[in-house]
């Protein structure tokens, strides 16, 4: 099983690495880091920190963008091009196919994050900005967030067109960053429906703010180990749930 998933993953990675979109977005992320360095010159204080903030924002923005815009075509393209016919006629379950595709793309996106992170480190060293454990922790959680976003994109890609899938994925990504605040605002509501509604939204939708250590990284605040491991565990669980749902939907599809 692992062998088959891995074969699928390697092939998906090979395909993703050929995507022009990937390089375009990677280029823009690096360009945005440079732009951030220029912008930070406008400030007369805390320049190094601002360079790092912009670089970090760029990593998050573009890795999520890559995740969504490549992820949404992941399954759909296979079905559209009918490559899925020969693949699924092999002793490979649809779930294995899906997980393989997911893993392959995720590995490539993680590679992108690593490239962007090394650029971040380079810029930081050049600016004489501090690099610390918190940066590493924040990057790791960005990687987890990306894993969740790729899973969402895969889910939507398994039953709808790339256009709709990107709407849905982006929408959920937005919502995922809002639910926490919405719940807190909702908690003050006099309507029980709003209170319960926002609370349930927070429970069900991906709580992507859990993976946000941007402020902590920015100021090198100390982060408790539990603030890294529990979100990571939460993310892994969420990915598992989404992929299982995606597999269930995918199993029922006719090609």
């Amino acid at each position, binding site marked *: 099983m692992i062998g088959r998933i891995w074969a699928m993953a390697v092939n998906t990675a090979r395909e993703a690495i050929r995507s022009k979109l990937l390089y375009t977005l990677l280029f823009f992320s690096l360009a945005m880091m440079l732009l*951030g360095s220029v*912008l*930070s010159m*406008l*400030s*007369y*204080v*805390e320049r190094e920190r*601002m360079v790092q*903030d*912009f670089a*970090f*924002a760029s990593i*998050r*923005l573009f890795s999520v963008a890559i995740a969504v815009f490549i992820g949404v075509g992941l399954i759909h393209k296979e079905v559209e091009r009918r490559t899925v016919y020969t693949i699924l006629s092999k002793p490979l379950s649809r779930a294995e196919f899906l997980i393989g595709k997911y893993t392959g793309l995720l590995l490539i996106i993680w590679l992108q994050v690593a490239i962007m992170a090394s650029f971040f480190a380079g810029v930081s060293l050049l600016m004489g900005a501090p690099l610390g454990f918190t940066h590493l922790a924040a990057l790791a959680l960005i990687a987890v*967030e990306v894993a969740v976003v790729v899973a969402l994109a895969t889910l939507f890609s398994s039953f709808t067109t790339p256009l709709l899938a990107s709407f849905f994925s982006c929408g959920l*990504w*937005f919502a995922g*960053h*809002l639910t926490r*605040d*919405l719940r807190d*605002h909702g908690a003050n509501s006099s309507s029980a429906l709003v209170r319960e509604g926002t609370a349930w939204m927070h429970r069900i939708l991906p709580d*992507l*703010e859990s*993976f*946000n250590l*941007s*402020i902590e*990284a*920015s*100021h090198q*605040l100390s982060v408790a180990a539990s603030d890294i491991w529990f979100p990571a565990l939460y993310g892994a669980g969420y990915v598992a749930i989404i992929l299982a749902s995606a597999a269930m939907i995918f199993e029922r599809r006719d090609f």
Partner: protein
Amino acid sequence: MHSACLRKRGWLRMTLLVAAIATTAAAHSQFDTTSRVGLGQLRVPSPDQVRLWSLGFDAAVADYYWLRAIGIVGGETGSIAQHEEVLADLIDVVTEVDPWVDHPYRFAAVWLTRDREMVERGNRLLERGISYHPLDWRNRYHLAFNYFYYLDEQPRAADVLEGAIGLEGAPLYLAPLVARLRSERGGLQVAAAFLVQMVESTEDQYKRAEYLKALDEIQIEERARLLDAARAEYWRRNGRDIERVADLLAGPDPVLQRLPRAQLYLDGFEWILEPETGQIVSSYYRGRYRLHETQTDRARKQRWREKREGVEGEGA
């Protein structure tokens, strides 16, 4: 024939393109394109909204609003005062979204001075800064300054500043400054008691020396106040002011038998009348024990107060 035709078509396209560019540019120049900042209409969203929509980019979003704040101050050739609300809103957003920022708190303290309301907004920001940077003496210093300088609340200024004493990097003069602030309302006894307590609570020889020096000055000030009382007595008896400090000992009925020392440990210092103010001062200190104010400080404070009274008068 064919290529000539193509060339002609190429020219036509080129002409159309140039015409389009010209029209676009002309149209663009015909309407007002002043930015919202330029119009003084910049709407700063509430910190809650910004935090909600920062979508995990909190740090960068805070930096963005910080750059806008700097842009207003840096780009403004006229008075900053008309932009102070926007500045306060911007710094509020910056510090709500990323409360661990450092400099923006003091930036607010420096620029939000137009009226009492603005100073109080600045103070609220500084208080937030203190709660996120409790070990930084500078925010406390600025807050104390605002209380003392703009709001005339010396006891509160002293309370705030007392919290800054002993923090890393805090200058040694903070404790004596607190003592001075206390002396303005509570009198010299309160100031002295505070300093004695500081002396007792520190192990640091330099700090101790600094505090003892301040205590010495208080003792001299006590003597100077005695001399002030004697001067008033002299006026009552003779119907005129002294010309020299020695006058207090002169005459058939001298007010004093002798003058106290003008310096506690060193000889060669005497009591003199300070030429500018006419006050009795020790030639060692050449000034009296109180908060120092420069001429410009005084003028500025005066202007600020007048304006404030004007605004309050209008309100009433």
